């Protein structure tokens, strides 16, 4: 049992690290093609990463160890997410059942690492990015917890694996309003937490709009490589979570090679498809003004809230 779980965790980690650059490549290529550009190709993120990790970072005088620690912390948080979220299999460690609150706090640990890194640089941009990043993280928190809450009511537990299993056993429950509202709210959360349009534009360095890029502006070389990979891994993990909650088919429930193999293929396909849909949707939307983001988050909060009350009061 425990050995099986460890195998599953190792497989999920390797899978996530292998799939992530491809996912980013696919998303960028999709976007480029739809915008009439050629794009760098699917392998480009991987090449970027190799280049960055082999370059030396720089350090300004007076910097603190946060400069070195934050990228590693972000990576750790993202990898922990990939280990705790049921991606290829719902088999979880008995002593660390991928409890949703634990997962969220691990996610927040990465968020905090990034925000501190932004402040550490001591430039106006870093602080600006960090401030915006934290405001969004703070306002998104109610939606996160309430949508989790809504999803965990039918399953009677906040353990992710159990929720996915319950949903898989009752496909009819996927379409009921509780579940629909919660999933829509969760998608907004994923968009906000991973800094995609319309909350943040990952491909801009325009000073008035950037959030994520502003925080990592001062980092270079190896540090930047870790930061990029860490942020991408977050996207993979969260997309995988939404995919498995919305369409729980194909995910393995034990560690036998066959079901694991099916699970690996299923999650890869789901994440890649979901990623390209997201990228295609991004072509058609513009970035929201920063001060309209709270409206978006309030909306998703209301959806999550309704989902919870509906789950109690009607269904």
């Amino acid at each position, binding site marked *: 049992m425990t050995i099986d779980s460890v195998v599953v965790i190792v497989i999920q980690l390797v899978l996530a690290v292998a799939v992530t650059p491809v996912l980013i490549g696919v998303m960028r290529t999709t976007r480029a093609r739809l915008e009439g550009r050629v794009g760098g190709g699917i392998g480009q993120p991987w090449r970027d990463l190799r280049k960055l990790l082999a370059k030396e970072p720089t350090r300004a005088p007076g910097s603190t160890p946060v400069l070195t620690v934050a990228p590693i912390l972000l990576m750790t948080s993202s990898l922990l997410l990939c280990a705790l979220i049921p991606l290829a299999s719902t088999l979880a460690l008995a002593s660390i059942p991928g409890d949703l609150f634990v997962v969220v706090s691990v996610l*927040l640990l990465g968020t905090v690492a990034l925000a501190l890194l932004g402040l550490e640089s001591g430039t106006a941009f870093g*602080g*600006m990015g960090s401030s915006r990043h934290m*405001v969004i993280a703070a306002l998104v928190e109610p939606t996160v917890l309430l949508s989790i809450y809504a999803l965990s009511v039918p399953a009677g537990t906040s*353990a992710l694996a159990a929720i996915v299993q319950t949903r898989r056993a009752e496909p009819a429950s996927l379409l009921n309003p509780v579940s629909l509202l919660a999933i829509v709210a969760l998608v907004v959360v994923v968009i906000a937490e991973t800094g995609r349009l319309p909350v943040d534009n990952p491909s801009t360095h325009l000073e008035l709009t950037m959030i994520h890029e502003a925080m990592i*502006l001062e980092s270079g070389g190896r540090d930047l490589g870790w930061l990029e990979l860490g942020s991408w891994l977050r996207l993979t993990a969260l997309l995988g979570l939404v995919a498995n909650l919305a369409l729980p088919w194909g995910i393995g429930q034990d560690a036998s090679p066959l079901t694991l193999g099916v699970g690996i293929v299923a999650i890869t396909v789901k994440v890649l498809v979901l990623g390209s849909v997201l990228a295609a949707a991004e072509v058609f939307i513009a970035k929201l003004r920063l001060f309209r983001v709270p409206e978006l988050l309030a909306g998703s909060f209301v959806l999550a809230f309704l989902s*919870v009350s509906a789950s109690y009061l009607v269904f």
Partner: protein
Amino acid sequence: MTVLESAINLVDAGLLAQLLLGALAILAAVVAPSRLRSLLAGAPIVCAGIAAAATGTAALLGGVGTGLRIPVALPLTVPLEPLLLAPDQLGGLFMALAGVVVALAALFGIGYAHGPAASRTGWTAFAVFAVGMQLVPAAADAVTFLLAWELMAGGSTVLLLADHATREPVRRATIWYAVMTHLSFLFLLAGFGVLTAAAGGTSWATMAAASVAGPAASLAFVLLIAGFATKAGLVPVHVWLPQAHPEAPSHMSAAMSAAMVKMGVYGILLLILRLLPDGPRWWSIVLIALGAGSALYGILQASVQADLKKLLAYSTTENIGLITTAIGVGLLLRDAGQNGVADVALVAALLLAVSHAAFKSVLFLGAGSVLHATGERDLDLLGGLAARMPWTSVTFGIGALGAAALPVTSGFVAEWALLQSLIHVDARADRLIAIVIPITMGVVALTVGLGLLTFVKAYGIGFLARPRTQAAAEAHEAGPAMRVAMVLGAVLVVGLGLVPGPLAQALAGAVSAGGVSTTGGAGLLLSTVDVVLNPVALTLLTLGILIPLVAMNAVLARRHPRRDVDLAWGCGGERISPRMEYNATSYSEPLVRVFRSSLQASQLVDVVRHDQSPLLVEQMTFTQATGDVIEDRLYLPATRWAGRLGDLARTVQNGSIHRYVGFSFAALVLVLVLVAL
């Protein structure tokens, strides 16, 4: 019966030891020469704190003494019962909590206290305050309780006044504090009066046995909750807290914020669990509303403060709010018959209380250390302290992690338990619960989110980046006593977070909750709701990921070592001035925009234009102010009315001797007439 006759067991001996050590501290404070005073007076207080921690733990784990009786020999016609000190399990918990905080604060104070805080009065007041506070939860009857309560209040008021000669805000803060404290005392006096009259006795046992119900119980509940809420700093009676905490000497702020406000929480628990356990349902709704309102309001105010100690003070209101919410939820669920989940909520309340005591001590001590080193507590003027004060920086960082409820700290465990209790409520059966619980969940979640922002700001602006002023640039590390206190506190924050199982099991006894057990040595198993949390396993998994990652990073670093450059990129140019950095005010500016109306924010941009051309700007000033809505809307009108009443009274009392003699004469005549009738 005298003191010595009482059977000597651990609890009784501990109580006696605290009293004696307190007396010793006062003696030392009075006679010791000023050079040695802090050491000689502080050491016995540290010992008294440790004694309280040991006594409290013994009582919490079920040790029962015969009680310490202190005969009162006052020349009164009414014979007073001897004062009785006999902590039960709940009292033991809060005594231990107060003891640990007092020990840390006093240890810090040995190195920190200077000026008036280190005077004879300063240390005497601290000793009186500390011992009084430790004895509040030990009291077994209303009279003893109120006596200890007043010792605590009096001692803290005197110590709060320490700097009054040099700083004006101190006087204002002390007036607020004194007024609110006495208001709290009056409410308690009235409340216990009602209870005593209804139950026919002052001891807790009598009151519990009488099972008071009906209007008398509700009246007592309202009065006592008002009193305890004032001490605990709940909205809308929190106003003293953001004024008093920043102005008190820092070791005192730590003790007040981490332990003294908890006495209000203890009072609430004592009231609803022991004295009046079968209250109507609206009591729990009152507690949830008070708690949720305080949590949200407190953290919203905290997130926009630039004054480090004020930020921490508002965050105290938030945490007490969360504790009260958890208590209210527990009470509501007990009323609805969902005892299993109710127990989880009550244990969550105690976990929140314990973890808040741990991390808030560290944070206030850290703020004290910063204040000591730079003379500043305005975050806008700090920065770059991580390189200059590594010990303070690391311990404050750990405290901030705890306050932001991130793993693996005690704050995380506590908030996890609270959220678990909320999501496991069965709300289908009961519409009130189905409406209250999701709202509570939303409020708690927003509080958690804003808490994260608040402490990222406090740590990132204060300790990272480059110093914004000369004072911050010349900061130095704290002395050994202060350092030890901060490190011990930080160890507590992480330690309690790593072994939540045994901790929660011990706490469960205090509220007689079932279904809480330890799993896998340290993990926490809540069997009634069937969830497990094992921070040790999580840490091991993290290490399993972290170690290969660090190894890989090290290999890469060996091949391509880090290069030092003269300047960071800074938008193509050198970072000329630290004034260009983001500061605390700018950090929370987006939040101020979002919550403008609740914060009463006002912004002023002042532009000075060049003489020659209006297109050229010479200078710009930006001022942002946020107000406390409740203070402005509730207290200012109240004080204004009080002032008017005072003016009216002037017409009667105008200082003329003849008029006063006339009053006495009139009174005499009146009495004579009344007697004759």
